[in-house]
């Protein structure tokens, strides 16, 4: 092989090796920089973003990264081997699921509650004046899919309403017949109602942020028939920043953290083990 051909050939080999060699993995834990990976239900986005920033300010060099989507998807991702330090779910079901599969370390902590509300676009194309109206024929309702916590809760609320006073017995059947889409996370439900594509949707109270409130009208559901969602969080096994994760949990459970949650529409809890 001539000299002229050696160099380009070696260069090609070098390129091949670079692509084949396994990636060096996460940045090593050290004093200089650390990443905290938090998996959290979509409804926690605004509140957790604030809390994450607060933690970063108090721990220079710490970077907090969030993965927001439906709790069910987060559980599935963890099961498939995704690496995270903290898992905050919107219901007990998916936390238990994760716990049963040995994905979490230690016990989960209850850190927030949320209640459901009915929302309609501000333009209110279906002319909904009260919650009973969502059973009207031909309107378009968007709910979370059954696997999504908010979806499960929504259906529970609908059934509860059906059994309560002031609501016809076929309320549940008629309402569920109006469902035109089952979204994979609660934010999609909010978007579609906000855009006016759906006539009504059921979301968390915390989803009605100031930005969203401009485009929607909210119908409260009485506590007696409402579902109060409990949000548990737990350390994830195999994470790379367990200390930072604990710090975050402490912040969330502190009075200060609870105020942040409240500011974003969530309901606080008394700081104690479930």
């Amino acid at each position: 092989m001539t000299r002229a051909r050696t160099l380009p050939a070696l260069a090609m080999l070098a390129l091949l090796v670079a692509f084949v060699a396994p990636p060096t993995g996460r940045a090593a834990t050290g004093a200089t920089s650390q990443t905290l990976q938090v998996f959290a239900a979509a409804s926690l986005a605004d509140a957790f973003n604030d809390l994450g920033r607060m933690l970063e300010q108090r721990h220079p060099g710490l970077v907090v990264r969030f993965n927001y989507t439906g709790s069910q998807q987060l559980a599935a991702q963890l099961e498939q081997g995704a690496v995270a330090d903290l898992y905050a779910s919107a219901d007990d079901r998916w936390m238990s699921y994760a716990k049963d599969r040995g994905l979490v370390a230690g016990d989960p902590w209850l850190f927030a509650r949320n209640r459901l509300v009915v929302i309609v676009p501000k333009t209110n194309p279906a002319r909904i004046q009260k919650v009973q109206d969502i059973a009207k024929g031909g309107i378009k309702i968007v709910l979370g899919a059954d696997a999504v916590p908010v979806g499960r809760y929504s259906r529970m609320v609908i059934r509860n309403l059906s059994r309560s006073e002031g609501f016809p017995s076929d309320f549940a059947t008629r309402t569920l017949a109006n469902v035109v889409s089952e979204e994979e996370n609660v934010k999609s439900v909010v978007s579609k109602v906000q855009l006016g594509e759906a006539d009504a949707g059921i979301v968390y109270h915390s989803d009605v942020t100031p930005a969203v409130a401009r485009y929607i009208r909210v119908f409260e559901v009485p506590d007696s028939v409402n579902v109060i969602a409990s949000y548990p969080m737990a350390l994830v096994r195999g994470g790379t920043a367990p200390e930072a994760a604990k710090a975050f949990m402490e912040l969330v459970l502190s009075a200060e953290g609870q105020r942040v949650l409240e500011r974003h529409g969530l309901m606080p809890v008394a700081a104690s083990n479930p």
Partner: protein
Amino acid sequence: MPGPATRCPPTPSLARIGTLVAGALLLGFLALPFVALLLRVTPGELLSRLRGPVVLDALRLSFVTSLAATAIVVVLGVPMAYLLATRDFPGKRLVEVLIDLPMVLPPTVAGFALLMAFGRAGLAGRALEAFGISLPFTTTGVVVAQVFMAVPFMIGPARAGFTNLDPRLLDAAATLRARESFTFFHVALPLALPAILAGIAMSGARALGEFGATITFAGNLPGSTQTMPLAVYVAFESDLDAAVALSVLLLVMAFGLLLGLRAAPVGSFWGQHRARAQGR
């Protein structure tokens, strides 16, 4: 002088080895996910899943919508490809960019844009509502999303097919009293058919696999908008085995589509003409 020359096999150069290794790596990288998927489910399991209503619904929806979408893409796309291949006009560049846009846009963004345009409160959607036509949350909406995303995959190959037409044949047709439309149907189309079939395969496969724009624009409801890709996504969270089964099904469908159209006998027919033209 040395003795009679013996033919030694040429020692492979480093470049050649490098290329082979790169090729093997790439193929391995592409094949492994498919193989892993196939190994997770047995044919028996697959068949039993097929009988479930969710799978049947998704299968039917995928089949119907991608067929309709592909048909629309052909009818709208082939003439456009012909125009692009044979004409120059002001704004042609812009048209080309517009057509390629769905290919580079993240599907969810595309779905969102579709909502802005054709949603109930959308630019054109408002007018459609007046006629009683509503696209989001409907099967028609699924077709719309698929058409939007699949168009560039048809126009690319079809345009290349028309561009490769021998202009002398088109000239000859003109001198034989053929107006442009006659020439299109009797000369251009038959000769560009292999390329158009390739376009059908690509756009069909794209429509079949469409997810982001569909779930954003048309929504997700079993029986009316939950196509196979959406069903896989949903199953992934609740029933992993069902997800695997559905994925394998989708894989087999796409595989069949691409293989079938590539093996079409049409290609070999013109192949003879091409071979001779090159040999001349």
